[in-house]
């Protein structure tokens, strides 16, 4: 009887564990500085990115965006004036990165979700970079990190990885080194990912998008570029209308939208 009870308990525990495959094992937060305008060194935008390593996958997303989403849900139903005021104060982190990357380790596939008005998603193979390792080391967050370099999607990168944390991934699409990447930047320092916190997973992703429209990566990249450079066309595609203001003669003219600089981390589409 005792043996049966023991087996039953073991099965029950293993059932419980089996259900818990998505539990966060480890977490790394990066300070992500990106230069929005390649010609202007002062056009740096800062975000906090979270790399959440689970048992079967890893998730990479903007921590600030998630915080903004939570705030936005909390404020749901409040007057528009208030919402606009809060947005101006940065409570919703509207400018933070909306992309969520999910790396499926077993399938060696990556699912990318990005939200404009609609949520788009696409899947691609995980492409580990070819790294060159150097003997230089430096200490980051008390971990000895070794230098490695690579050329990826049109930019040269210098990475510092910690073999003491044997996860072969890093921020964004970086992977393949025999330890977690704690710092990586392109050689022009236009894109810098610097780890500020490592440890057992505490902060779960607040909300993944409910459902998405499958779209080729190229379309997503085009939308991203339009969002930065041509809001009129972007509004037309995403919202089915462009913002316009009525003229005195009864006609309407488009509301001029601010042209933002565009400096994507991924230059492979530019290179094509």
């Amino acid at each position, binding site marked *: 009887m005792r043996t049966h009870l023991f087996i039953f308990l073991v099965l029950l525990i293993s059932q419980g564990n089996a259900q818990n495959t998505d539990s966060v094992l480890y977490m790394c937060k990066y300070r992500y500085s990106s230069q929005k305008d390649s010609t202007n060194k002062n056009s740096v935008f800062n975000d906090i990115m979270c790399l959440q390593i689970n048992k079967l996958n890893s998730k990479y997303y903007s921590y600030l965006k998630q915080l903004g989403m939570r705030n936005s849900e909390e404020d749901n139903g409040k007057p528009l004036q208030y919402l606009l005021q809060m947005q101006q104060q940065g409570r919703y982190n509207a400018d933070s990165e909306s992309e969520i990357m999910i790396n499926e380790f077993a399938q060696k596939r990556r699912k990318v979700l990005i939200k404009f008005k609609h949520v788009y998603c696409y899947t691609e193979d995980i492409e580990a970079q070819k790294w060159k390792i150097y003997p230089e080391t430096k200490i980051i967050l008390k971990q000895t990190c*070794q230098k490695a370099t690579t050329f990826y999607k049109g930019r040269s990168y210098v990475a510092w990885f910690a073999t003491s944390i044997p996860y072969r991934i890093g921020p964004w699409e970086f992977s393949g080194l025999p330890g977690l990447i704690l710092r990586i930047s392109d050689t022009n320092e236009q894109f810098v990912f610097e780890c500020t916190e490592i440890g057992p997973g505490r902060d779960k992703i607040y909300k993944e998008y409910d459902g998405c429209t499958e779209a080729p990566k190229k379309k997503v990249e085009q939308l991203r570029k339009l969002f930065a450079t041509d809001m009129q066309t972007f509004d037309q595609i995403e919202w089915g209308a462009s913002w316009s203001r009525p003229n005195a003669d009864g006609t309407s003219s488009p509301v001029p939208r601010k042209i933002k600089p565009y400096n994507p981390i991924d230059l492979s589409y530019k290179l094509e």
Partner: protein
Amino acid sequence: MKFILLVVLTICANQLFCQCIISGKITDSLCQPVADVNVVVLIRGHADILAYCITDAKGLYELECTNTKDSLLIRATIIGYAIMEKGAIAKSQTINLILTPQVTELPAVEIKREPVSKLGDTINYHVSYFANKQDRFIGDVISKIPGIDIDPSGTVKYNGKPINTYYINGLNLLEGKYSIANQNIPYDIVDRVQVFQNHQPIKILDSIENSNSPALNIELKNSTRNKFIGKVKIGTGFAPLLGENEITGLKFAKKMQFISAYKYNNTGIKFAHEITDQVSIHKSGETADDNAPENLNSVISQPQPPVQTTRYLFNNSHLFHLSTLKRLTNKAQIKLNLSYLNDMEETNGLNRSTFLLPAGNSVAITESLKNSLNTNKAAANFIYELNDRKKYLKNNLAGQAQFSNENGLVVNNGNILQQSSHPFYLLKNDFEAIVAIKNKFINIHSQTAISNDSKELNVSPGPFPSILNDLVAYQKAMQNVWIRKLASKNGADLMIKKHDFQQHFSTGADIIIKKFESFIEKDFSQAMSKLSDSFRNEIKWSNLRLYAATSATLKMGNTRLLIELPVEWNTYSYKNTVLNFRNNADKVYFNPNIILIASLSTYYTLEMSYARQNMHGDFLQTAKGFVLNNYRNISQKDTILPFQSVDGYQFVISYKNPLNALFYNVSASYSSVEKNLLSTQTYDKFYIRSTSMTFRNNLSTLRISASANKFFLNAKINLFGSINYSNSRSVQLLNRQLASAFSEEFSGTCKLNFDKFSFASFESTSTLNYFMSTINRKSYAGNNFSFFQFQEDIKTNFFLTKNKIVSAVITSSSFWDNLSEKRNYYFANIGFRQKFRKIELQLELRNITNVITYRTAYLLSNMQQVTETQIRPRSFFVQCYFNF
């Protein structure tokens, strides 16, 4: 020949660039292949990797490395298995490895954070960055945070503005008594201090009523949540026998918070500040003194010198407080705050008071004082609060009972004994409810307070024999005073917001009834007798106030304009039973208020305001019967109702860049008070008779202040500087002559904190004060009082090891005036702290220089008071701290 050359070159090349290939299979202890294992090859004894690869699904790996004479190390790592290392030599070979399952311990959380970060309107200050080893409580750290200043009364200000709420983990446990948190919560359990720059504490009003007041939240470390934290301090020393003991219990859970402490000391630490309600928390229009005890008659006592109380205060104080908060299932909170203070204070000193008179002469009184004050004060608050985005409901029931006894021995022309007893009771209920109906908000509020304040003052031998006993000396005078108050303030507000326009209507009725009774008894020839009706008051005073107000807030871009137009009708009724005199008056007041707030840029804010306030003056000014205020002051006021109108102008420009840790502000204010009663003083030897007469007079005050704070985050240098200037002009009737009084005051403060070094910290505060007061300045040039005071406080700590600190506190103080020579004082304390595993021991030698008396001065209108206070003698003290 070519073939031979090719063979030779090939051999040479092989020799030079020989590649070795190390391959193998990695399996677990059950011989199952392990995929995705990181396999790296290193030179033995070095950390850097020569080559790496990962195992495939069959557990196979292959590494290519250049030939080397050094011995190599093959290391295989994967989560869930122990690290496997195997030595190898640099030649092609097969090395199979077997991994043992083991829980992989990854590096613990290490956080490298910016000391200051901004998220929307919230500024986060990471406590670990601003704290140093010598700090104990969160208040020690908060005072070092850029932009934040804690003034001597305990009020926390952010860029010069008092905070409106103090949260602990987002919950307002202590309401206005937040000094309890600052002085009891250990800094090392706090993760970060957050400043909400524009905080509206009532959630339902978040979207309608913009607040530009800051609030503070202390966010505790996750590891300390839900845990009970107990702290004990035991201290003893000599001479005389000294003691400082404390026991504190804290718990902060998601649904319950609790702080309680019992403290005792006889070393000069004043506990009263800890349980003081901070004025800034009070609602607009309400002052902290609304329900405070009156101080109509008192024992002449020594003013507090501007040095730490531990330098001069001889005391014996016990304090107990308990604050607890419980969140109910409907998200409402109930809070209970209890406090009890038993305080015995003794002061000894010498006073020389000089009164300037219009004729150019002056009256001087010299007194040697020996006072003891015993206070018992119990206070309780019970609060129910529901504060969510749909409704707001708060009821605060507060009670206070206070008994104080004071004895004073004055030696001037003889020995004068003063005795006073002062019981005071207050019961108060505050209710407020806000509901939203569509886009309108309705606020209903009601406050009821009842208080009983009585005071008895005995003076022997009897003072003012000319007034009180027909010029004949007598044994004792006894002044009895009772003041009973009932106030009920009820109103309703309607708030509407449409786009950038916000409208606020309010209406209500306040009724205040006060009853004042007083009489004087004298002991003459061993017989107690009550004095005639000239020395008796029995006044019933009431004020019914009906008001209606409308205010509009218009937002134009980054500019906000607030216009308040309140109209109130007041009916006053005054009845003096002793004189059988009744007086009624009706007054309609229009008290407009205009505020303009403009955000000039991200960092600059401009605020301008004008307010007119018509109000009644202090009803005690209607007491026609004599009241003995102290042994040398007797007053007799007018019977007409006192009124005053105040015009106030204010201008503030502030700069705030929290991420750069740079703050500064400049403010100027001017107020003009027009009164219908003029207070008068008549001096006769050391007796002063105060009266009042109907005479329109004006008091104007100008204040200019500026402060700047820069924290150099990398260098950990905090610099703070402030200057304040004020002057006031008034008219006084002194010895039956009309005189214009002018006084001015300047103070400058400079603080420097340097915390960069791991072996030492340094803190310096320099203060310069200048005071000047004159009567009829134009007619009698030189007929004035002025004095300077300069004080320098230096605190240094040397961290000998991680657990050993040597500290030194040095205060140098200088005082000089236009009548006497400069006096310099040097105070010094030296201490040593050693932390053992669970106990911390602190040894301290206080007042090393053994200063015996301290001299300083105060100016009040036409009076200069120079005091010499007795200083606590040199003492040695041992303290022990531990947690449980």
